[in-house]
């Protein structure tokens, strides 16, 4: 320990490696300086690798904070590593801007004498209840032995995977190859949902690809409507580098006041403090006001919104064999033209201003003002409006919120032009570019009458006792899903609660034990991660496999403007840890599957390239171009440094070029060159006609569920989300000394009224609990009519049971939240707020309503932080200076 008042400087000969931040969607560019321990640079520009005289000037991006230095091993030898945002970056985080998450990347690295020393270093087998180190050969042998048995005896419907969707193109391609090409199982689900499929189906139906925008667009807009997220908190540099500097007026629609909101209000913007789950009504009311006033962008609508012929007669909305089919044949939502939509909207009672104001909790005046800011011409000039949305919007009322927001954006003329975009802000980065084979949807057990099969709801499948083997990679599964304690209970019953346990480290004996377990209706679990995760790894898994991750192999990934960079390896992974693609390949070979002969991550990158064709993350032209140049594609990308390339990549006149914005007609450039693919959505919307579609969004579809889950008596809404200083389950943050000081525990923001009524003060430990957590069971196949499409039907048919959940957090009493609603971190280990979330997915899209939990509060004691100056603070986050 030191006073933290000095850092070593990289000498001028230090090795410089480029990478990007491992955390949020923005993926700021970083430089890693490494050099052997025992030498240091000096304070003159000529003496250090940063090329600057110290002290480094403000905004130089060339200062190293103590959190940005660590010691790692390279080739077994100790090396200093300094990791700072790239001061030379010309894109994303220009000049070295960064968040607190990325700014502490150095503390994430494995260090044998530091807080990351508990990284998984060797495969583990649970023998006699204890996780015991074994060789890769033993672990993979047991895994393959039981997998073969499950596939042979119980079929591929009993063998499943639950994995991250974003830890690099190479690893996710390997996952897709194993699950969809080799095993051919539909029992697959990404980390944040019960099954594959569209996350923002309402946008997709409109023809809007949800990462169509470029960050520059947010600096070109006059006004930005931000729904269900504060980019300052969760996409920090998108806000501080692009939104703040661009000068747009910001309109926030969120239940909670944040720093971004405070900034918006101080700079001519607006805060719509919406009640959780009611955004659809705001969208309807604003759209209606705009149409009533004639403020819509009619020129854009005439050109870019599909007319009746294009929908009904000519191209069709997709009545056969399209992803739209099962939703839009649903009668109630399809609008066959702008006029048809307008007629519906102007006559629709829930689009009336006063009714929307009453239910949403946002004043009629504020809704009107928002509509004006978005669309009312000023001095004859239309404002350039953009729309940025995220999970508060689409994980509260998934289909209706996204479809109604798409409508609002389109009538304002947004979607395909500079400064006029509709896009997700994003959460994690985009790390899945290609599928080795299509998801085998025809195998899925989910089928509603008259409609295509739906992707599986894997959680419900597990609850039904159908899954016998689960390969879990890089996710907590239980805590990340809804009604998480109920789910964890099921896992516990199927694994540790089963009489058949491994009693010996002998591989064949272990296989036999697990065979008996799965044959008796139990389940075997393999968990692969960088740390031992509770409970999936520490308690439930039979085999735990150590993964090598960021900085420990060469990987590729894209950010929220589809910008792909190489995340370079710069140090040794801990112990025997291996990258996920390697582990998958070793397992697959033992299973007898072919095509897993990759020697390095570049090989996987190359193989996956052709499967990315036609997607928004198409990088195939880069690989083809590299081959022409006789280069390794990873090396070509490495040369592009922190700039990388915005996907889809294209070749124009022999040059490799990126794509700034999707749907933009200026992208239409004639005949596609070489391996370039000109998908229609490059220069038009992603529909049959290339024109956007409007959808009716009747509130009644959601109203029965909303009524059922609205807090009553002393219940409050329990909403949750990300906060600036914490990434995901805080797996790194709890090992970063500084971030652990800021958040040694999770928090819950409680309004002073609610706190006072319950005797709660800031710093108290509060339990949030509910004995009314709804869980959908069964209901995989509907028989007739509109079976299973409403909550009432699910209830009537006996598909809803009532469970329990609870979590605890340290209270922060603040008027940042609405009375009657609290806010907490979404994924704190050991205290999952998702335990309070109803496991009843949106019937249209099978997406959970994560943000719409409810519960009761009670004080259970005082945290050590209440009366200490040492760690945690209860000061208000959204503060602004008095008017200056």
């Amino acid at each position, binding site marked *: *320990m*030191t*006073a*933290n*008042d*000095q*850092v*070593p*400087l990289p000498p001028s000969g230090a090795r410089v490696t480029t990478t990007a931040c491992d955390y949020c969607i923005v993926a700021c560019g970083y430089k890693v300086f490494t050099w052997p321990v025992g030498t240091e640079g000096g*304070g*003159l*520009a000529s*003496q*250090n690798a940063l090329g600057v*005289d*110290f*002290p*480094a*000037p*403000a*905004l*130089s*991006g060339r*200062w*190293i*904070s*103590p*959190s940005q230095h660590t010691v790692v091993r390279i080739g077994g030898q100790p090396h200093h590593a300094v990791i700072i945002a790239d001061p030379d970056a010309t894109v994303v985080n220009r000049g*070295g*801007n*960064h*968040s*607190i998450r990325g*700014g502490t990347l150095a503390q994430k690295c494995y260090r044998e004498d530091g807080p990351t020393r508990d990284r998984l270093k060797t495969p583990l087998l649970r023998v006699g209840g204890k996780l015991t180190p074994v060789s890769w050969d033993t672990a993979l042998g047991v895994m393959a032995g039981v997998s073969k048995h499950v596939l042979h005896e119980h079929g591929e419907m009993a063998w499943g995977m639950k994995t991250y969707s974003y830890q690099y193109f190479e690893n996710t391609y390997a996952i897709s190859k194993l699950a969809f090409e080799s095993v051919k199982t539909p029992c697959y689900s990404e980390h944040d949902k019960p099954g594959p499929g569209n996350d923002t189906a309402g946008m997709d139906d409109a023809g809007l690809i949800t990462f169509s925008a470029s960050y520059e667009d947010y600096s070109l807009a006059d006004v930005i409507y931000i729904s269900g997220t504060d980019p*300052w*908190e969760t996409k*920090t540099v998108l806000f*501080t580098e692009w939104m*703040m500097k661009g000068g747009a007026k910001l309109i926030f629609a969120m239940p909670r006041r944040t*720093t971004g909101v405070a*900034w918006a209000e101080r700079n001519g913007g607006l805060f719509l403090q919406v009640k959780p789950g009611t955004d659809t009504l705001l969208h309807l009311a604003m759209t209606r006001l705009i149409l009533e006033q004639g403020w819509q962008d009619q020129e854009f609508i005439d050109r870019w919104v599909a007319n009746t012929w294009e929908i009904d007669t000519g191209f069709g909305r997709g009545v056969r064999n399209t992803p739209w089919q099962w939703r839009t044949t649903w009668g109630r939502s399809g609008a066959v033209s702008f006029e048809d939509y307008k007629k519906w909207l102007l006559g629709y009672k829930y689009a009336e201003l006063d009714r929307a104001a009453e239910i949403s909790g946002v004043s009629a005046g504020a809704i009107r003002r928002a509509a004006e800011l978005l669309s009312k011409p000023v001095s004859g000039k239309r404002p350039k409006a953009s729309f940025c949305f995220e999970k508060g919007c689409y994980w509260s009322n998934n289909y209706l919120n996204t479809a109604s927001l798409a409508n609002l954006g389109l009538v304002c003329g947004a979607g395909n032009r500079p400064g006029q975009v509709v896009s997700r802000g994003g959460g994690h980065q985009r790390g899945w570019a290609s599928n080795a084979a299509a998801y085998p949807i025809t195998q899925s057990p989910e089928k509603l009458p008259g409609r295509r099969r739906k992707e599986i709801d894997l959680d419900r499948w597990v609850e039904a006792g159908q899954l016998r083997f689960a390969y879990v990679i890089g996710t907590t599964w239980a805590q990340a899903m809804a009604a998480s304690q109920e789910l964890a209970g099921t896992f516990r019953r199927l694994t540790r609660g089963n009489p058949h346990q491994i009693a010996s480290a002998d591989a064949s004996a272990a296989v036999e034990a697990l065979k008996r377990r799965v044959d008796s209706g139990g389940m075997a679990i393999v968990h692969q991660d960088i740390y031992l995760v509770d409970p999936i790894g520490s308690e439930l898994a039979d085999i735990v496999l150590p993964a090598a991750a960021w900085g420990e192999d060469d990987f590729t990934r894209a950010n929220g403007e589809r910008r792909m960079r190489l995340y370079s390896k710069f140090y040794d992974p801990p112990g025997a840890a291996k990258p996920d693609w390697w582990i998958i390949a070793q397992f697959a070979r033992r299973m007898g599957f072919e095509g897993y002969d990759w020697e390095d991550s570049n090989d996987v990158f190359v193989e996956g390239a052709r499967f990315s064709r036609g997607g928004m993350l198409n990088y195939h032209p880069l690989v083809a171009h590299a081959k022409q140049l006789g280069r390794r594609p990873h090396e070509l990308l490495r040369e592009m440094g922190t700039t990388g390339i915005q996907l889809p990549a294209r070749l124009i006149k022999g040059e490799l070029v990126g794509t700034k914005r999707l749907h933009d007609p200026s992208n239409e450039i004639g005949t596609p060159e070489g391996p370039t693919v000109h998908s229609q959505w490059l220069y038009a919307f992603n529909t049959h006609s290339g024109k956007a579609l409007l959808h009716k969004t009747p509130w009644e579809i959601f109203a029965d569920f909303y009524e059922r889950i609205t807090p009553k008596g002393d219940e409050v809404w329990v909403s949750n989300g990300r906060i*600036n*200083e914490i990434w995901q389950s805080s797996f790194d943050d709890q090992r970063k000394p*500084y971030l652990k*000081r*800021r958040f040694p525990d999770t928090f819950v923001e409680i309004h002073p009224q609610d706190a006072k009524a319950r005797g709660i003060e800031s710093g108290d430990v509060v339990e949030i609990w509910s004995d009314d957590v709804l869980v959908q069971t069964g209901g995989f196949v509907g028989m007739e009519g509109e079976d299973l499409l409403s909550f009432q039907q699910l209830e009537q048919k006996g598909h809803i049971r009532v469970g329990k959940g609870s979590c605890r957090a340290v209270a922060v009493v603040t008027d940042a939240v609405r009375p009657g609603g609290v806010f907490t971190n979404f994924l704190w280990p050991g205290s999952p707020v998702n335990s309070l979330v109803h496991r009843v997915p949106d019937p249209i899209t099978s997406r959970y309503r994560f943000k719409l939990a409810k519960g009761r509060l009670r004080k259970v004691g005082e945290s050590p932080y209440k009366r*200490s*100056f*040492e*760690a*945690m*603070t*209860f*000061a*208000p*986050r*959204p*503060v*602004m*200076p008095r008017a200056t």
Partner: protein
Amino acid sequence: MASETDTSAGGGEKPPTCLTRRDFLLSGSGAATTIMLASLPGFARAQEPLALRVAAYPRKRLGRISRLQLNQPVEFHYPYEHAHCRSFIVKLGVPAGAGVGPEQDVVAFNALCTHQGGLLSGMYLQEGAFRLAGPCPIHLSTFDLTRHGLIVAGHATQSLPQVLLETDGDAVYATGMMGLVYGFSSNLPRDWKEGG
């Protein structure tokens, strides 16, 4: 005597100190600093090496506690007369970590945001019982002055560097720092020990 500090720095980073090492050694502040650190929560483990480190800082008289007005920061430079060493001392009116004076509410901090060096001068905020520095005018980071300058919300990867204070009667002295001042690679000349 300035040469003692000048010769010890490795490169461009050698702004003149306001006190010389000799002045510092004569002040005998090391023992007092150690005692004060024992009351600093969270730093107990680091006490000894930290105390040694802090003992290397100059001791600078800042003025008199009784002259400080509630919630009115007063600026000074520490440990050097360098632009980055712009600091402020303030009487918060509420007890604070490492606070001195009869109410333990007098604290001092460096005024440069530890994110990208934004100047927090004049960005002192009272919010109910809370005392904050920020939001930084550049990217809106905010720091809690009662909790050793801990980040409340924002992007800085360490707390606002706290200037450690001591009192002698009514007089208040700056005697050390917790945390690296923005822009520097070391608050003290790098080879201070060797150079002396």
